[in-house]
Every structure is written in structure tokens, then in C-alpha cells.
């Protein structure tokens, strides 16, 4: 199950763990990503708290936790190849895996269809 946030993150849940990243729309808006400050493994976050920072040529942007939970894995490839986010934001460019502490929060997020509509309305 894949869900989207209004702050342009995605989460794809498999069991209790979800892969998190920024959306394709977000990477297009940011332009070339030059640096990803990955979160610490074990970090506990509430929904909406800053998960990590993504830096592009234009700016540094916070990435927010789409749901509450614990960081259990990070995509270390991004250390040397941050451009993976530009190439495949919603696949190989994933940022972290989170163990959900409150899966019901997923219901508050958008489906792919809803997110597309949200973006086409210009934010």
C-alpha cells in the first residue's frame, strides 16, 4: 500500500515497515539533488517531524515523517549517489524504512490518485 503526504513524501507499507522517500513531483521541483543528510537508525519520530534534509542546487529542504515510528534502515547509496532521487524518486531513491507505531495514521494520507490531483491544483 502506497500513500502520499501534502508535504510531498511517499510511504509504501509492507507489513509493519514502510519505505519512505520524496515524490517524483518533489524531486522535479527541487532540481538536482546534491546531498542527503540521512536520518539516524533507531530515531523515533512523530508524524510530521523532520526525518532528514535534502539539499539541491536551489535550497535545503526538510523531509517530514509521513507517519509516526522508528527508523530501522536508511538508503546508504544516497551518500555517494544522491542523484538516485532524481532518477527514481519513488523506487531506488527511497530514503529510509520506518517501523510504524500507529498504522491508522495511513488513513489520513492521500492515495496516488488524490495526490496527483493535489499536485495538479498547484500545491
Amino acid at each position, binding site marked *: 500500500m502506497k500513500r502520499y503526504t501534502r508535504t510531498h513524501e511517499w510511504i509504501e507499507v509492507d507489513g509493519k515497515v514502510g519505505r519512505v522517500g520524496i515524490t517524483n513531483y518533489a524531486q522535479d521541483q527541487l532540481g538536482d539533488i*546534491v*546531498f542527503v543528510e540521512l536520518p539516524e537508525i533507531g530515531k523515533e519520530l512523530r508524524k510530521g517531524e523532520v526525518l532528514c534534509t535534502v539539499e539541491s542546487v536551489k*535550497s535545503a529542504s526538510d523531509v517530514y515523517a509521513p507517519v509516526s515510528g522508528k527508523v530501522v534502515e536508511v538508503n546508504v547509496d544516497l551518500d555517494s549517489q544522491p542523484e538516485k532521487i532524481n532518477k527514481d524518486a519513488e523506487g531506488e531513491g527511497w530514503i529510509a524504512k520506518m517501523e510504524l507505531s500507529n498504522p491508522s495514521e495511513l488513513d489520513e494520507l492521500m492515495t496516488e490518485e488524490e495526490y496527483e490531483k493535489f499536485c495538479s491544483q498547484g500545491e
Partner: protein
Amino acid sequence: MGRVRTVFEKSVDGRRGSSVPSSGFPKRDLDEMIPKKFIRSTPLNLPKLSEPEVVRHYTNLSRMNYSIDVGFYPLGSCTMKYNPKMNEIISRFEGFTFIHPYQPEESVQGALRIMYELQEKLKKITGMDHFTLQPSAGAHGEFTGMLIIKKYHEDRGDFKRKKVLIPDSAHGTNPASSAMCGFEVVELKSGKDGRVDLAELKSKLNDEVAALMLTNPNTLGLYEKEIEKIADLVHDAGALLYYDGANLNAILGRIKPGDMGFDVVHLNLHKTFSTPHGMGGPGAGPVGVKEKLRDFLPVPIVDFKNGRFYLNYDLPKSIGRVRSFHGNFIVMVKALAYVDFMGEEGLKKVAELSVLNANYMRKKISEFLKIPYNDFCMHEFVASGEELKKYGVKTIDLAKRLMDYGFHPPTIYFPLIVHEAIMIEPTETETKETLDNFIEALKKIVEEAKSDPNLLKNAPTKTPVGRLDEVRAVRKPKLRWRGDDK
């Protein structure tokens, strides 16, 4: 034009710029005078060139530069106004350049008087009660101001206030300075009109908030009309109000931050007060405070007692020094020269003309480029290249193409709340002809975007170097020449 060769690549063995005559003393070996372990084992790699070669090398480099003395420089948020040459002449007087900070106070009364008078004038302009001239530039001023705020709360025994509120349209230095002082930054979402949303502010204010950092007019060039209400809300919550002086040009001589309710103000002498900046500095970022914060100012401050100017170190609660010696003194001389030459009426005119110029451009440019918050603006405004995306063109392409027309591009991709932002600040020192030429060029470029987008995507083509690879510059920066790369 191809790649410019470095001075090292031009080096030819055996060539030199000058020949030193014999001293007449007997020649001694180096190891007789210096212990062997301190002597270099490899020769120093200095370029070998004749004097005219060196002069031509640097003169040619300087001709590739772009500055306010070459052309229009509408870099939004930076106030790239003309730097009057009178400032330069005065600041080069020997009485200013041949003194040293270790001289006895009695022998530098004139210099101290300059600093004192500048403090007095900045007080009058901003409506603040005290000033420090120490900080070296804007962000340094912010850092100093936020340290003062921190110390103020701690001195009251209030250690809860760990948060600083900052609008999402703020200068990036605001959150950075707050974080440097150990504060947690809380973002305030702007309202629909691009200004502070009072409901949002109320919801974020509590007894953990140390301050709200604001710039007025804000980065969209819009005046915060509710500033008095904002100040009351902040003060009622026990927090302080910080004024980022980057945009002071718009209100010079008209309104004072102190009267708006601000407790701490930093100024950029290199923006508002016409001292050079943009690779040319150095800058200066004086900080002004209200009476209740005086005791926390960095020491020393310049004071006057019994007919004599002196450095006052007697502030027991001071945050300490923030700079070696007394700040960028020569910059202060230039700023005071500017204030004195302009006079009160002149400074008012600065604000008027900077606002008039910006609105003239905004109105004309809105005919062919989208302006998201198209309201009466102050000294600057923000347009958007969003609508050009359908032609495959981004704001950066627009900006680069402006260089082919001989202009310095405006600030782009800031503030972050406008997509594809292009932020234009003409300042008061430009003529209508210059503004018209720029508007005409921008209009032509927007037409080019539709008819021949490659003209923009390949720009600039008329500059010493073409489009630089910004991504590679960030990912694999080469910060100095190492001698091994041709």
C-alpha cells in the same frame, strides 16, 4: 573565449618580475642561519612572469568581472545600490587608514567619534536605544542579536525558551543563526496574502518561544501591515521581536523598526548604507537594541563622557566579544559619510525612490510574467517563471539569458514560497532608462522562451565562460588550485 589560463600556467622558467640588487653584505648559507629542520626541501612553486605579464593577467581578469560600476545589478534582497565614490575618498584619509586598534584612546579620538556618531545616527534611523558596531556582516549581526536574546531570557531565570519562530518566507540566514545559538526553529506558514498569518502566529506562540524573527517589508517586498498587532502578540507571550534589517532601504527615514515594536535590529551597512558588497566587501552588521537589552551588548561599546570618547568595557552581563578589535572600521567611515551626505531628507528620498522604482518595474513586468503576490510592493517584488515551464524553460534559463543582454541576473529560487521565483530589487540609484532597458530585455527573453527556447537553455553565450555545471560544483567542489590539473 576559451578557458582563461591561470598565472601558474603562464609561468616560464627563468623569467622574473624584478631583480634585487646586491646588498653588499657577504653571502651566507641559509643553514648557517636557520636550523635545517625549518628549511624547505622542495622549492616553492611560484609562477615566473615579467611585471607586464602579471599586470595584464590581473587587469584582464578584472575586466571579466561584473559589478555595480559596470551595469544594472537588480539582485533581490541584496540592495545593490551604487556605492558613491565620495565614501571611498573619505575612507582613505590617512587618519583612518594609518591608525591601529592598540593606540591609546587619546590618540584616536577622531576615529572613536566617527563610531560614536554612526551609533547615534543609526539609533535615530532605527528608533533603537543602543548599538554595537562589532559584527562583520548581516548573518554575524543576526547571530549577535540572537545571543543577546538568549542571554536576556536566561538572565531573567527563564530557561524554557528554546524556540524561535521564523516565517517560511524568511532569509535562510535567520534559521541558520538561530540554530547556531542553540535554538529550535519553528516555521510560520505565510498567509494567503504572503504576510504573517496572525492565527498561525497565535497557535505557535507559548512560553517556550524566545523570539520571532521578522523582516519588514518581508522577502516578497510586502509590508507587514499588522506589525503592531504582531508585536503585541509576541510581547504578551513574553518573547522578543527581532528585526532583520536586510530590507530597511524601503522604509529609511519613514518608519522606524523601534516604533514598530522591535527589540533587536541588525543592519547591513553594505546594503542600506551604500558601502560596497558582492565579492567586494567587507560588510558590517551593527546591532541595535532597546534599553532593557543594553547590558547584554558585546563589549566594548563606544561611549562619550567628560568631553572624551572611550571604549566602554563595563557591561558585566555582556555576551562578550563577537569580533576581534572593533569591527570593520573603514566600512563605518563610509556609512557615516553616506548618512551625512544624504541627510534626513535625502534618506527619506531613498526609501521613496526605491519603492517607486520597484513598483514601476512590477507593474510593467506583470504584463508578461506572473507575479504571484501582485500587491503594492515596497523596494522589491517576486515574479515567477512557472508559466514558462510548458516551453521547457526554467527560471534559471531566464536568468542566464539576462547575462547575454548585459545585466546581472536577479536573485532566483528565493523566497522558497514562490515556485520558480525571480526576485527583483532595482534600488533608488537607477534611472528610468536603465529600468526600461531591463524590462525590455526581460520581455524579449520571455518571447524567446516561446519561439526559441534553446536561446535560453544554452545561455549565456556572450560571457567569458558559458553555463557552469552547478551540480558538479556542489557534488565535487574544487576549492583551490593544486598544480596538478591543467
